[in-house]
């Protein structure tokens, strides 16, 4: 009962924090000396990317728990985390693309390792959904999806190193984005944004899980009634 009641509280906190994050990122944080106003997208791009990693990691953790101890609940939870991860991963690609356009003048750069990694992960997790929706519902689907989700977390470091290695021969010039060290205000603003985005992911996750549970209960109810 208490977990259901806490959701509006979380949602309210997230709304306030997100509003604060927008203010902090646009007004409070000092302007970057090199990149100017376009650098402010950093306060959303990087927290979104970190949140996407977190969602994928939690999805794999739930998958591991599913294989370990079982429970249909964990299948839904793992799926929902991965769903959130894919949403935030797509947002990372979009914000990263905008940032690339603003600072390098191109919408896409293979030299940005993080963006390429997110593209690989995006393809991987899109395939996860294809797999999930082409298997008949049941315990076996949960286990197969869980195994694929586990491959996902192994793929993250593997792709990371692969892309680092590949940039040697595909893209010899390495972009250096090392500007001046982050100042205290910048870092503080970053933390506010990070907290807001992470909380947003959590609220979205909770909402989706609740929705899915209601769907499942409704379906059961209909089966009982008919």
């Amino acid at each position, binding site marked *: 009962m208490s977990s259901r009641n806490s959701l509006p509280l979380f949602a309210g906190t997230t709304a306030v924090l997100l509003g604060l994050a927008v203010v902090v990122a646009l007004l409070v944080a000092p302007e970057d000396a090199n990149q100017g106003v376009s650098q402010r997208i950093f306060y959303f791009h990087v927290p979104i990317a970190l949140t996407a990693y977190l969602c994928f990691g939690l999805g794999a953790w739930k998958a591991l728990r599913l294989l370990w101890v079982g429970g249909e609940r964990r299948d839904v939870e793992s799926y929902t985390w991965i769903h959130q991860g894919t949403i935030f991963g797509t947002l990372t690609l979009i914000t990263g693309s905008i940032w690339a356009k603003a600072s390098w003048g191109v919408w896409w750069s293979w030299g940005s390792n993080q963006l390429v990694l997110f593209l690989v*992960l995006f393809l991987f997790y899109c395939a996860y959904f294809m797999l999930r929706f082409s298997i008949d519902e049941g315990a076996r689907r949960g286990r197969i999806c*869980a195994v694929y989700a586990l491959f996902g977390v192994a793929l993250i470091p593997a792709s990371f190193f*692969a892309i680092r290695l590949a940039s040697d021969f595909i893209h010899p010039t390495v972009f250096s984005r090392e500007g001046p060290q982050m100042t205290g205000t910048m870092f503080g603003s970053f933390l506010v944004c990070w907290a807001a985005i992470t909380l947003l992911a959590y609220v979205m996750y909770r909402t989706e899980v609740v929705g899915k549970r209601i769907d499942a209960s409704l379906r059961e109810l209909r089966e009982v009634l008919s």
Partner: protein
Amino acid sequence: MSAASLYAADVVALARKDLRLELRARDTLPAMLLFVVSTLVVFHFALPAGTGADAAFGLLWIAIVFTALLGLARAWAPEREGGALDGLVLAPCDRSAIWLGKTLAVLIFLMTAELVAVPAFALFFAPIDLVAVAGVVLASVGICAVGSLLAAMAAASRGREVILPLLFLPLAIPLVVGGVGAGISPEGAAYLSFLGLYDLVFAILAWATFEYVVTE
């Protein structure tokens, strides 16, 4: 017999079953051989003249990956058509042995195809050194280890043939990077060790999780 030798005997028996099936039916291997050679010929016409060996090397890897997909798509077909997988799962052997046997069989098919593809590539496009060959071997191990598990997943789904490449290609990207790097980079050894690490991590993962994919 010790547990380890029993396990090895199971694996060998399963792999031998696949090889014998292939020898009698010739369903997969001739198709893979013809496919890889045709692909290389098509690439000759796809590449503009004077593109150089580096670009051709990338195409060799596309040929290898898609040839492997061709073999993997049929990897579990005999079990599925004969309804044999349920029997194998019920058999008193470790279920990971089923995966290892299948991986070995697919690896032998792929290596045979590469035995034709690599000399053909050297003949048509560019010479190949030992590091590049080692890259081909190591990447093939990874392709088959991951691929035979993913093929089992795809076999459980409705759109088998369509879904396997979607599952497989994102996971094959690091292998392609390692293989191409071993072929054209002056520091080929770094790429070989990367491939070895990938093989190790994903083989252990596939070995440990295969059971969950095949049990109902």
